[in-house]
């Protein structure tokens, strides 16, 4: 009889911090302690708190162990699983150790609060990620236990295709991959077109730097995507589906393959599903990682076996999509919401979020934030709640400066707008976009001109080259930014940059080029003074752009300890012992080694 279950995260984050070794250690320790009949090891998808990985949760207590290493496992098995004593030193701890007013007893009580009570999880509402970190993604039975495939059953036995589309439309679900197009309307367009063959395509070509929610869903709950695609097929009259997933996501691909096989074996994919006469089959296509293939027409061109380039719209995919047949394309996270909407109703979903953005959104928190990881929050949550409460704030006492949403297609939200509720329309109004949900947090040490240059570097690399505005325009923009960051820019360059950005935005063929100028436009809008400081004062206020930096030593503070001189890799620092040192700026490569090594704060950057 299984009395205890040990859930070990097998997501990509924890796998790279060593969860596989932890799992193997648990398996052997449990046999050693003769607990194999009583304790079950369950590999799961991502829990979301990747910062604390490898993550292990022991039920029924719900004890949340963080940073577990293989060496810790023997102790957990002996102490917790055998003797019932929670290993406090490994428990994820939100208690501030300096809080002297708390007695040890209360501290222990706080430590044992269930996982769902921690600040990281408390404000979250998990719909798309509901099974991630809860079930074994390689077991269709566990998915079924969590009401899996019940939505498909309901759709095929009780609802007409029109009912399904109405339910999705009424729920207010909008595409989670970037543009935010209403999903129900998208489905109705395909449904309205008559054809001998239609397709459903799942866009799992997650390309934004820093976004990994689709990966997490595919790794943690692959069956929910399959179920949703079949539902979409029924609603739109399609009998075949394609999942276009990056080859760089090997765990996701493997689990999808297992899931498709299991679903076929159970007759949940294939012919005559639930004896309804409905047939649906799903194929996987691996992408080679080109950013442009996340654009729907380029993605379909790539599935067809051609070079991944976008094509002009119209005709839209709903009319002439994959293999020139009517096609519905949705992103992974969009699909992940569908079964829940069918089971719990459109009203339930529409009760979450804001007026025009319903439900929840998953964000990948990254950058200068304490808790990096995946969070799913109701639409309309403010950026402040995400960063300060869920994200645990900015590390090292630094000040929040801005957050980048939508990756290279999005823009930044400055600190002054931190209380804006996050939804599709508010973000667009600010010149940002939801994008796929990457949320990169920046502090006072980030230079906004440098950030704009970073994202433009990315789009220049990823531009497919088909249309001139994107191919040439983004390159020229990047050159202007390089001129500015190297200290050779003029005020006129800033105006030129802005004008060029508008041209690229308006004239590019596809979403990649149309959104590529967004990081530049947003930083110009909110941080224009930083651009001006670069060209007029020839200074980088954040101290990032190397060409504009000069290192010097404050003779008042320098004790002459020689540590900086000993650590300088190019021998640019000279001086006698116990006398103030000097930096030779002609030799200095501005690496910052002297600042890191000075114990007296005598090295000045600026």
């Amino acid at each position: 009889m299984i009395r205890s279950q040990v859930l070990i995260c097998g997501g990509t984050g924890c796998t790279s911090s060593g969860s596989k070794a932890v799992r193997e250690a648990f398996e052997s320790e449990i046999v050693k302690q003769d607990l194999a009949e009583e304790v079950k090891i369950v590999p799961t998808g991502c829990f979301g708190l990747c910062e604390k990985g490898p993550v292990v949760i022991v039920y029924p207590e719900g004890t949340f162990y963080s940073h577990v290493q293989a060496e810790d496992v023997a102790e957990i098995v002996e102490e917790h699983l055998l003797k019932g004593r929670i290993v406090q030193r490994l428990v994820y701890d939100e208690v501030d150790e300096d809080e002297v007013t708390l007695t040890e007893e209360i501290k222990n009580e706080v430590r044992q609060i269930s996982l769902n009570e921690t600040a990281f999880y408390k404000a979250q509402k998990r719909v798309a990620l509901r099974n991630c970190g809860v079930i074994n993604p390689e077991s269709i039975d566990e998915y079924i236990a969590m009401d899996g495939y019940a939505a498909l059953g309901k759709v095929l036995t009780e609802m007409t295709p029109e009912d399904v589309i109405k339910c999705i439309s009424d729920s207010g679900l909008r595409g989670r991959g970037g543009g935010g197009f209403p999903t129900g309307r998208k489905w109705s367009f395909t449904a309205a077109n008559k054809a001998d063959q239609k397709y459903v395509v799942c866009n799992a070509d997650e390309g934004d730097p820093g976004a990994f929610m689709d990966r997490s869903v595919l790794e943690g709950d692959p069956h929910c995507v399959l179920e949703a695609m079949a539902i979409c097929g029924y609603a739109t009259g399609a009998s075949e589906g394609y999942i276009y997933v990056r080859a760089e996501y090997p765990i996701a691909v493997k689990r999808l393959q297992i899931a498709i096989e299991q679903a076929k074996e159970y007759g949940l994919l294939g012919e005559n599903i639930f004896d309804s006469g409905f047939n649906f089959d799903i194929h996987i296509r691996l992408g080679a990682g080109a950013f442009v293939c996340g654009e729907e027409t380029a993605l379909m061109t790539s599935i067809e076996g051609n070079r991944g380039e976008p094509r002009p719209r119209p005709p839209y995919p709903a009319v002439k999509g994959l293999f020139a047949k009517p096609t519905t394309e949705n992103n992974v996270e969009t699909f992940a919401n569908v079964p829940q909407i069918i089971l719990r109703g459109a009203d339930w979903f529409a009760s979450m979020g804001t007026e025009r953005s319903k439900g929840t959104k998953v964000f990948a928190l990254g950058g200068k934030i304490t808790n990096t990881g995946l969070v799913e929050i109701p639409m309309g949550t403010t950026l402040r709640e995400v960063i300060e409460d869920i994200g645990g704030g900015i590390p090292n006492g630094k000040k929040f400066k801005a957050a980048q949403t939508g990756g290279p297609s999005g823009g930044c939200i400055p600190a002054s707008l931190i209380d804006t509720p996050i939804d599709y329309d508010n973000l667009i109004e600010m010149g940002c976009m939801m994008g796929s949900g990457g949320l990169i947090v920046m502090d006072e040490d980030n230079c906004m001109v440098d950030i704009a240059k970073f994202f433009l570097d990315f789009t220049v690399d990823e531009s497919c080259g088909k249309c001139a505005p994107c191919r040439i325009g983004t390159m020229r923009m990047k050159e202007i930014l390089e001129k500015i960051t190297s200290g050779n820019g003029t005020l006129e360059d800033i105006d030129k940059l802005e004008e060029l950005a508008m041209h690229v935005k308006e004239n590019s063929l596809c979403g990649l080029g149309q959104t590529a100028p967004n990081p530049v436009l947003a930083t110009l809008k909110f941080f224009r003074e930083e651009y001006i400081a670069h060209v007029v004062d020839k200074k980088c206020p954040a101290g990032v752009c190397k060409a504009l930096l000069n290192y010097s030593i404050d003779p008042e503070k320098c004790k002459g300890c020689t540590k900086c001189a000993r650590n300088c890799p190019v021998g640019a620092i000279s001086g006698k012992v116990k006398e103030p040192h000097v930096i030779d700026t002609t030799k200095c490569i501005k690496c910052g080694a002297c600042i890191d090594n000075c114990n007296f704060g005598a090295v000045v950057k600026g």
Partner: protein
Amino acid sequence: MKSLEELAAIRDKMKSKVVLREGTGEIRVVVGMATCGIAAGARPVLNAFAEKVSEAGLSEKVTVSQTGCIGICQYEPVVEVFEAGKEKVTYVKMTAEKAAEVVEKHLKGGEVVTEYTISTAVS
């Protein structure tokens, strides 16, 4: 899979296996599993609770868990039953057989098995 009934059958069969992870039990049964408890035979007691609770179909209502030393080693194996709004019940000198009885009478029937409680043992 040809019918919703087949799907429901798999779901019901599997439900008891994943319900442990939801931890929404209204009643919490805690078995003292420190060295003294284990030496006195707490493991068969813990396993009996886990098994009988599942057999009785109480998995969604009752969470069976373990804890360290409760502090009354002479009475081990000790089992405590916590229920919201009710006073904690402490059973002492438990065995697998007594555990089965507690599941049947107390957890299912709602009646405390007074002869195994600590108050009876002390007096």
